[in-house]
């Protein structure tokens, strides 16, 4: 039988509407893959189709997932799809497909399935990064009192981080900027947070810190130095617990201003 590869946009909308299409077009699931990028090596006897994202289709699939499998499973999928893994869309597709065909609401507990483990692991990978960044993210106070944080996450996690900080800092205007993807979350005091593309950002405002900013950054760096016990010095453990790719954005490690907003350096992932 000929294999089919459905290639879709790398977004929840793109992936969920491709899953919708796989069902609508009566694909034979065992012979169908969903991918968010082109295959590097084209295989024989395989058809490659580019799918069009459709909000309506995606919403139908999401609703179905929530109804049939519950919110927890839906969140597993979302976190898995927030990674950059080449297999993510296919793994979610097959977990869903197995869950539907077995009518198993708890399909995410069937760890004897390879795809379930894959989604579980990807989801955990994203979750770990969310957990880490809830702590490692650093805000800097700009001249106008806005708190600005810059992060370089491996997964697309802004929408997972935002609710945590919005709950914690209701009285602050803050921006969290994802350096890797060129998107940011904006939280204006007293209003809901929202996502924004970096095209609309006012760069010059991000270069001026408040008067107190340097002082507090210095105080915290000093505190971190003092709180370590010399007799237990263990830089290996420190690096293991707080990886260098996080340290790069943390003022207590960089010793000074973390690199500020720079559009030219950003890598678009799709």
């Amino acid at each position, binding site marked *: 039988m000929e294999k089919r590869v459905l290639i879709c946009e790398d977004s929840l909308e793109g992936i969920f509407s491709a899953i919708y299409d796989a069902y609508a077009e009566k694909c034979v699931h065992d012979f169908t893959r969903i991918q968010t990028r082109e295959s590097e090596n084209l295989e024989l006897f395989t058809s490659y189709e580019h799918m069009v994202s459709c909000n309506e289709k995606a919403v139908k699939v999401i609703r179905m997932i929530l109804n049939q499998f519950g919110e927890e499973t839906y969140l597993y999928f979302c976190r898995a799809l927030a990674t950059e893994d080449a297999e993510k869309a296919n793994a979610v597709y097959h977990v869903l497909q197995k869950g539907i065909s077995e009518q198993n609401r708890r399909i995410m507990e069937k760890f004897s399935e390879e795809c379930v483990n894959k989604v579980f692991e990807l989801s955990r990978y994203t979750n770990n990064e969310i957990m880490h960044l809830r702590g490692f993210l650093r805000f800097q106070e700009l001249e106008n009192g806005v708190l600005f944080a810059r992060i370089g996450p491996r997964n697309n996690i802004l929408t997972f981080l935002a609710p945590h900080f919005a709950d914690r800092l209701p009285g602050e205007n803050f921006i969290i900027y994802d350096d890797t993807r060129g998107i940011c979350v904006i939280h204006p005091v007293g209003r809901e947070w929202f996502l924004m593309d970096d095209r609309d950002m006012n760069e010059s405002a991000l270069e001026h810190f408040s008067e107190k900013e340097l002082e507090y950054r210095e105080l915290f760096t000093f505190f971190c130095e003092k709180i370590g*016990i010399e007799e*237990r010095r263990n830089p290996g453990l420190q690096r293991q617990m707080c990886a260098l790719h996080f340290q790069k954005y943390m003022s207590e490690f960089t010793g000074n201003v973390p690199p500020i907003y720079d559009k030219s350096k950003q890598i678009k992932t799709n």
Partner: protein
Amino acid sequence: MQIENEIIKSVSVNQEMSIKEKLGILSDAAKYDVACTSSGVDRKGNGTDMGNTVAGGICHSFAADGRCISLLKILFTNECIYDCKYCLNRCSNDVPRASFTPDEVCELTMEFYRRNYIEGLFLSSGIIQSPTYTMEQIYEAILKLRKVYHFMGYIHVKAIPGADPMLIQRVGMLADRMSVNLELPTAEGLKSLAPNKHRKNILAPMRQIQNGITESRHDLVLYRNAPKFVPAGQSTQMIIGATPESDYQIMAVAENLYRKFDLKRVFYSAFVHVNEDKALPALPGGPPLLREHRLYQADWLLRFYGFQADELLSEEKPNFNILLDPKCDWALRHLEFFPMEINRIDYQMMLRIPGIGVKSAQKIVKARRMAKLDFTDLKRIGVVLKRALYFITCNGRMMYPTKIEEDYITRNLLSVKERLPFDVGTVTYKQLSLFDDVNIPSQSSVMERVLTH
């Protein structure tokens, strides 16, 4: 360093110290306290004030010693009228002294928290004038932080033994966690190194806080909005290796603290030699890190794996194996339980299999409801087969034909390198001798009498 201290001291005499100087002295003085976590309570933000808390706790940074930085850990003052032999701040030491004002503590906490440097405040103190006076100072600072600065993040406060119970009660209504340090594992140890402290005085506030927590839980059942007393529970810590207690004694004390005082956590702090004092052991190999590590592993077994202290150690075998973690060590001494059949064995027993942790055990229990599991499945689930293979069967079969024999398995397990959080190459042998130094044969009479009543 000496000159630096001199300068700081002269500055303190002549003029107001800067906030940086105070922070330097008072965080340096607080660093030996190991209670670093911000865990134990979930509290959503209230929509206006700054702060919330997350039950799992959040690490915000890591110090050069690899320990987590979660809270702004400071002493209110490092002035002290007591003379604990192991402590840098003891009154007989000539060190620079400083004190914060309540506003300074509040401002630092607020500004650090806003920038997401910290999860909250950890406030302890040296004893000024009297325990009650000291507790009053702490209370004032915390009260201000909560009521004037409206801080809703995590607060951990030390209860000072001997302070007026009314004050401890009031602090407990504001703090998330409280702790009273046991300091040393036994009353004898305490007497020899902390002449101003008494076991009785330490256990009294511990009991008071425990009762407060129980009452508050009870009130919460009746009135949903009843104020919470120490909602994240209480913890304590003891110094390991400054006095001659065995691991068995230490674990028995910890077990009692969990059972009889409902403690959330017991922390173990490898003794760091900061004072020259003939009452203190020399510890040429540095702080006993491996020993501390084994105690934490065993503590974990008590709290999450259903083990009891006397299953792990005994009067005859009072100390942990240096080469093997306590769970492997237990399994090797109980080969009669093995191999266990993964598709049948109950969860509690499964937790006793080396190579299977809480997470894999939970996954196994779920997955085997839907399909019989084989070794490939276990690998996928995250079981460390290199360890587990000697102790399990899947569908009646072992992974390889293997001897169930202590020596054979021990040799094989030792060849799988254990991941330790510090460099073992040089440490092991030093630690080895340290264990010998420290462990005078245990006498049951020394065993915690106070704690067992």
